[in-house]
């Protein structure tokens, strides 16, 4: 185990990077593991909201200066996507990148690729930047269905109208009296990035809020 988790020095010799998910043999549990979502049957009646966890994704937080041309081109070279503009999200192969703050972005990718993506980023970026693997700290819940937007409207003061929240927009806002990064993936599909410590609470909130519309729990 210690062999596997040995940190390796980055080429700048300043940062010790480590594969936080080194082998499939190491058991991992998502923040909603204990809710046993896979064992839920479909509810009675017609379900107009589906909710499920996109569990065990790789989450990387990138910070840097978007006004620096080298930083922008480095991101593009490493991820194959352009740095998203304010409140926007972009999709690449297996990778999505969301604006979080003027100097902060969230990258989602398969967990198995997270370390490779991190290393590619470090190879392509120079100077004052940071890449942090926060995969263990948060999870993604996907809401879909014709009434998904109504569940969100009940849970957040934000304006989710089509004219204000087009596909591809991402906002970090108050959600269920806590906080979530909400990204509109398609007309009826919304991804919520939720903190690990709030995952149980937020999921129960969603189950309650969606029950009046008929909730179908989906398992990826």
């Amino acid at each position, binding site marked *: 185990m210690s062999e596997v988790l040995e940190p390796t020095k980055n080429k700048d010799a300043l940062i010790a990077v480590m594969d936080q998910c080194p082998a499939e043999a190491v058991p991992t549990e998502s923040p909603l593991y204990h809710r046993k979502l896979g064992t839920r049957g479909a509810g009675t009646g017609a379900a107009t909201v589906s909710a499920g966890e996109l569990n065990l994704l790789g989450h990387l937080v990138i910070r840097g200066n978007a006004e620096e041309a080298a930083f922008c081109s480095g991101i593009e070279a490493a991820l194959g996507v352009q740095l998203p503009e304010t409140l926007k999200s972009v999709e690449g192969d297996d990778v999505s990148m969301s604006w*979080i*703050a003027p100097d*902060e972005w969230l990258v989602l990718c398969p967990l198995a690729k997270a370390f490779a993506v991190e290393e590619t980023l470090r190879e392509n970026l120079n100077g004052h930047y940071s890449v942090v693997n926060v995969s263990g700290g948060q999870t993604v819940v996907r809401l879909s269905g014709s009434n998904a937007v109504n569940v969100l409207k009940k849970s957040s*003061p*934000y304006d989710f109208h089509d004219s204000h929240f087009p596909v591809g927009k991402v*906002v*970090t*806002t*108050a959600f269920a009296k806590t*906080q979530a990064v909400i990204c509109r993936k398609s007309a009826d599909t919304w991804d919520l990035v939720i903190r690990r410590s709030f995952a149980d609470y937020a999921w129960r909130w969603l189950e309650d809020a969606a029950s009046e519309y008929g909730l179908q729990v989906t398992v990826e």
Partner: protein
Amino acid sequence: MFYIYCPYCKEHREEEEFHAKGQAHIARPADPDACTDEEWGEYLYFRKNPRGLHHEMWVHATGCRKFFNVTRDTQTYEIKEVYKMGERPSIVAQDQNPTAAKQA
């Protein structure tokens, strides 16, 4: 409820997303060792509480988590302007020039 414009997210958000963080533009004395106790005490503990225009800091706590400045009228609660950290307000009360008022 305030409906506050975040200069970093570039849109209006509910007050629920923000926290007020007190008076803005408090400059730390350049040489703290050279301060008298009174000057240091003023810097640490004494804050304005004006009736009228007030420059204050707010943080977009559940959004981009950035600090910014707000010029607000404490009588009407009206937000006159919002500007980023490091910028100076363009709306300043006539009688609110801090050094002039203090020295007078």
